[in-house]
């Protein structure tokens, strides 16, 4: 689909990424490869460093050490930390997307739903009002948000609808790499199931590469091909999702897996 050159290279290659806050460790020496179409879950409890790592990988936070090389469409692997601020901002608007846990951080609450989706298109140069609106409607349908509400403000939406709208806003520009920070956190279970199913379908259909941070092992099981378990800023175990969850090797992973409540 994208030619063989792309499948021969990871889309993101992180090496020894480290970030400390003064004496406090954020994340230490994190290295991994992410391949096109792969979903990687970073799991761990609060304070494990998973959000710090996600923020470093998405260049929202500069690490103290290490590199993260991203494979751009027509241009080999480039270290995102060595790019200019303008280049990084361009990536954020085009190839990348970031889905926040709280829709308030990823949506503009006082701008209509349609404009929230259309805005990202305009940021990459779309100008024709009719086209932009048509694509906004199309994406609202894809994420199952009632299109009759296109002119309503997201603050009048339920939490689940807001989250689906945030996903539409992020995916409308056709990104290749999507970062997600606890995208189903704080939602009712039924709403969560619907959202997970939606994300799963979009990821497969659009062949997205995803790095998702979650503390919920069931979410990792459902969405991720691979996972990394973090504790105290370090990766204690990584591998295929089913391997890590069904045959955990590290004491901490065994504790996590055995602590899951069975419904």
């Amino acid at each position: 689909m994208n030619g063989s050159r792309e499948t021969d290279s990871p889309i993101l290659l992180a090496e020894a990424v480290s970030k400390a806050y003064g004496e406090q460790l954020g994340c230490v020496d994190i290295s991994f490869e992410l391949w096109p179409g792969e979903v990687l879950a970073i799991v761990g409890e609060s304070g494990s460093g998973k959000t710090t790592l996600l923020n470093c990988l998405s260049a929202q936070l500069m690490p103290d050490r290490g590199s993260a090389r991203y494979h751009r469409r027509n241009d080999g692997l480039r270290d995102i930390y060595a790019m200019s601020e303008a280049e990084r901002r361009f990536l954020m608007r085009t190839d990348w997307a970031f889905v926040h846990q709280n829709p308030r951080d990823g949506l503009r609450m006082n701008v209509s739903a349609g404009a929230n989706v259309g805005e990202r298109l305009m940021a990459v140069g779309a100008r024709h009002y009719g086209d932009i609106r048509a694509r906004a409607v199309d994406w609202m349908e894809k994420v199952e948000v009632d299109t009759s509400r296109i002119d309503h403000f997201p603050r009048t939406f339920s939490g689940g609808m807001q989250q689906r709208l945030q996903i539409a806003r992020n995916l409308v520009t056709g990104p290749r790499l999507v970062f997600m920070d606890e995208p189903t956190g704080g939602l009712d279970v039924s709403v969560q199931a619907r959202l997970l199913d939606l994300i799963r379908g979009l990821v497969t259909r659009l062949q997205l590469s995803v790095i998702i941070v979650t503390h919920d092992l069931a979410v990792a099981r459902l969405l991720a091909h691979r996972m990394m378990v973090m504790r105290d800023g370090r990766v204690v175990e990584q591998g295929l999702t089913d391997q890590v969850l069904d045959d955990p090797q590290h004491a901490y992973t065994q504790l996590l897996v055995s602590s899951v409540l069975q419904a």
Partner: protein
Amino acid sequence: MLQAEGLAKTFTLHLKDGLRLPVLSDMSFTVTSDEAVALTGPSGSGKSTLMRMLYANYRCDAGVLNVRHQGDWVNLADASARMVRTVRRETIGYVSQFLRVIPRVPTLQVVAEPLIERGAEEGHASRRASELLERLNIPAKLWDLSPVTFSGGEQQRVNIARGFAAPYPILLLDEPTASLDAENRQVVINMICEARDAGTAIVGIFHDTPARNAVCTREIDLAEKAAA
């Protein structure tokens, strides 16, 4: 198709003061493409553990597990996660005892998914999925529903349909006939025999002796291996 040499597995329970439970050691065997091999032995002898190792669901502590994948040998005991995913998509199918149900995904889609993942066209994948569901006597009115609320036997048949949707050179079957009635049991036995005769290498656990006798060409007794 499959060559195991010196496979070993010990579970270390860190939450029980590092208690070590040795399950398998020095397992060596080969399976060729015209064989259906039954793993036998009493419960606790490591049959399910070995099956999971063959699918790389459990890690091997020692040994080599070579699998014939697209003309090359791949050692699953030390293959990258990405390689294991490719081998699972193209080469090794696994029918587990229980269907891991994903909420909201309709039965037809659950069954068609392995084909879609290989890049099959959606119409073709759905047709193949419907044929299998029909053969396994899952009423068509259930195909649009998620199997969450299905009976145990129905879920198992959905699981088998999914396992047979895409043709795999190697098929792992964990008690495929366990909760089926006589009629459906026969359907499943026929499906396995057809796959075997078409050249699929099969490794399975069958507590159901008549099914094992109907399907398998050879047995590997894990109790004997442990004693040896």
